[in-house]
């Protein structure tokens, strides 16, 4: 599976006024000689590689996806155009090149990553540990609007994640590896994964440490009850291959596959559940293998979910209520990867009949 390259749009007119002086970014690069610009293939000069591959991808996608937003672009602050919208509702094709695949709500750069999650994903950490973690040393994470600078930064950021996990720490900037103040969890992860692109903005949004830690504990508790039917929201993570960002959806806020599908389409505007999804309500219509294969070949991505048994199934096989009762996680896979799921899904649905 080849994850799409994360290109950077060298658009100087960032709508983010993250204005640090030009020398700041340079100094960061100078001071970290270990950070050579690499793309995921390990090539050190990736400027030409980036642009060519990026344009390649966009063409392919344009052909396949009805002019939806195509390019996976995860630029640093300031590298996106002002027209970009938080909601990807306006799929205006003229801003094709600038539309992010992940209009990460609120779509822009410079959002703090949810690294708090790693704190709670295992050991309980003393507060002092987390205090240390909070201090990512560069407070000036912004970029300036100089296009050349953004492309330089883009190279740092254009490191795709072949083994993207939901681990939020993979979002960290390379600069942060060099800072000794990180807690052990983060350091370990950084060492093993190539860093992803989103810039960490220290101290933003301005939420006090105490509250941050409480929220981290809360989200852990919520994760543990995910999938359990009951009152209240039912958040499941939605990941998409090749993208370092996850989304979460509240399955209870939908009543049918179509709603889920359109919501996810809005969020990740370039996949299709496949026409099989919309027939989910009766749910028993088995997909003929060939039909499924057609669909899967026809669309770039399909929506799959992990059920309580840990199996990955295609979404749309079972009635909606059964689905939300058993769905633990959603994943938008490349069609080619999902082919292997079809037989299993069919078997399962047969046994359920």
């Amino acid at each position, binding site marked *: 599976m080849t994850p799409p390259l994360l290109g950077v749009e060298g658009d100087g007119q960032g709508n983010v*006024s993250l*204005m640090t*002086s030009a020398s700041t970014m340079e100094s960061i690069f100078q001071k970290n000689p270990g950070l050579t610009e690499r793309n995921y293939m390990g090539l050190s000069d990736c400027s030409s590689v980036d642009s060519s591959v990026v344009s390649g991808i966009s063409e392919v996608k344009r052909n396949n996806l009805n002019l939806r937003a195509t390019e996976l672009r995860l630029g640093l602050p300031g590298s996106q155009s002002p027209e970009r919208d938080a909601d990807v509702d306006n799929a205006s094709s003229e801003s094709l090149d600038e539309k992010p695949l992940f209009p990460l709500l609120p779509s822009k750069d410079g*959002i703090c990553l949810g690294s708090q999650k790693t704190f709670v994903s295992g050991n309980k950490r003393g507060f002092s540990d987390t205090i240390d973690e909070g201090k990512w040393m560069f407070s000036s994470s*912004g970029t300036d609007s100089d296009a050349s600078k953004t492309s330089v930064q883009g190279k740092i950021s254009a490191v795709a994640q072949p083994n993207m996990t939901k681990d939020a720490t993979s979002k960290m900037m390379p600069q942060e590896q060099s800072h000794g103040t990180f807690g052990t969890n983060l350091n370990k992860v950084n060492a093993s994964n190539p860093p992803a692109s989103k810039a960490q903005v*220290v101290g933003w949004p301005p939420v006090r440490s105490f509250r941050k830690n409480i*929220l981290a504990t809360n989200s852990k508790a919520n994760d543990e009850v995910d999938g359990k039917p009951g009152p209240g929201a039912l958040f499941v993570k939605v990941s998409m291959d090749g993208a370092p960002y996850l989304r979460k959806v509240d399955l209870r806020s939908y009543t049918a596959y179509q709603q889920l599908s359109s919501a996810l389409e809005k969020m990740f505007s370039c996949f299709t559940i496949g026409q099989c999804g919309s027939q989910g309500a009766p749910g028993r219509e088995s997909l003929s293998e060939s039909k499924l294969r057609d669909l899967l070949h026809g669309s770039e991505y399909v929506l799959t979910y992990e059920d309580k048994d840990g199996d990955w199934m295609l979404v749309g096989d079972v009635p909606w209520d059964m689905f939300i009762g058993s769905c633990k996680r959603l994943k938008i896979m490349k069609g080619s990867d999902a082919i292997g799921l079809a037989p299993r899904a069919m078997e399962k649905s047969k046994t359920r009949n």
Partner: protein
Amino acid sequence: MMLLQPSMDPNRKRAKSVDRVDSVDSGSESFESTRKCGFPDEVLERVLSLIDSHKDRSSVSLVCKDWYNAERWSRRDVFIGNCYSVSPEIVAARFPRVRSVTLKGKPRFSDFNLVPEDWGADVHPWLSVFSTAYPFLEELRLKRMAVTDESLEFLATNFHGFKALSLLSCDGFSTDGLKAIATHCKNLTELDIQENGIDDLGGHWLSCFPESLTSLEVLNFASLNSEVSFDALEKLVSRCKSLRVLKVNRNVSLDQLQKLLLHCPLLMELGTGTFMQELISGPVTEFKTMFSNCKNLVTLSGLWDTTPLYLPVIYPACASLTFLNLSYATLRSDELANLLAHCKSLRRLWLLDTVGDKGLEAVGSCCPLLEELRVFPADPFDQEIFLGVTESGFVSVSHGCPKLRYVLYFCRQMTNAAVATIARNCPDFTHFRLCIMNPGQPDYLTKEPMDDAFGSVVKTCTKLQRLAISGLLTDRTFEYIGKYAKNLETLSVAFAGSSDLGMESVLKGCMKLRKLEIRDCPFGNAALLSGLTKYESMRSLWMSACNVTMNGCRALAKEKPRLNVEVMRDEEGSDDSQAHKVYVYRSVAGPRRDAPPFVLTL
């Protein structure tokens, strides 16, 4: 705010008659040397002792030498907004009879990890001086100070009448320090531990309160993680008959809370523990009368892990509540609506944005007396969640709550039109803090900058004292602020502005500005130096990740010797000409003597 006149000699003898007023204040008139003040000192002191407000007392002290002396002898309560603006020796020399001290230390952005550890604001030098100057000190309230266990032990053992300790956003201490306080302070009335960087080594500290301690009126340990002995807690609560504030931590279950409430009928403020169902032994009906004893309850907080089933146990207490803090309760809109239907008297409400816009509609319809609303983000760093509140929730509240004065609102989208409507509906805003969580985000409908939003706020809300701005903002925002926000005292700016003109407009126009904190804005030396004549009338200026250079800071320091111009160097040893974090404040104590190596005073 305490104004200290360095030229005043606090040790001058107290004369019976009025002397000529000389170097007190350069702008004051001088009295004729023959005029006599008719009041004997004792009467004057008695009269002045009735004045509580710090600002008033500062004014009083400037009238003449007699009044200055009378004021200083009658001052019981000292408020020091910046611990480095004055030294403990100066304070002790001027105010001989102080009983209560409030000290604030680090710049506010230290709450968000922008200030390195070991920056300073150590309370210990203060305690050392106070141990000789104010052995009868009764109250100490610290905010953003560095406090160690040794200091707490020193406090507990050197001040024998010590009564009230309040720690907010402090760090450097552990629960061992609390043990010392609990053990040694025989007359303790208040122990208020809020949101600190505390090393929680366990809940044994609470068991250190001796059986003889019955004076506690305020006990707040809501932010501590470790479980305390419930037995010790119950006994403590039952023997402290004057307890009016009790805020327990999350480990205390609903069962346990019910038992506690039986012992404190006078309670005015309650912070509950957890509502987690697994920890509850009885059905919900068992808790029906839980709050019926507490007739005086006006504040309710905590409310961890509430569920729709057990949250209603608090309904009987809601009618008289004036402050409801739900900022740790992940309520949905319907739960909130049901709850608020019982809360007609609410003046202050803190929420999590899980309630959504629908929840805020309920606020607008149920709480007409609301004066303060804070909406915190449940997942500020989680870009995945497509939820929270939007501009429409805020607008709903503004329609239903015209008395709104204080708002803190975290959201992911906003429009200029919405803010204009809000300002029109609530012209009495004194504190308007809007945080659009994505830096530099424009009006999501028009794609315009959010300049007009804040323009409408400052134009309409003439009483505005505190403003925090966010979103995509050009210099126009700052022009508006400078032109209209004549009562503004505190301004927080992040990721905003287009040029030096922005900051210059604010410095020129906001006459009452006291605190200015700026991060990640394109303001450079020209902007910094445009405030040359202003900084001495302000408490402090913070600028980080802006375009200020060392030379600019040096120029400022050179021109203004009574300002401390401090530059914090990033640890990565960055380029010398950039001043990454600048902190400027007035001081009568001269440059810091305890500055760590990364803080350079110019």
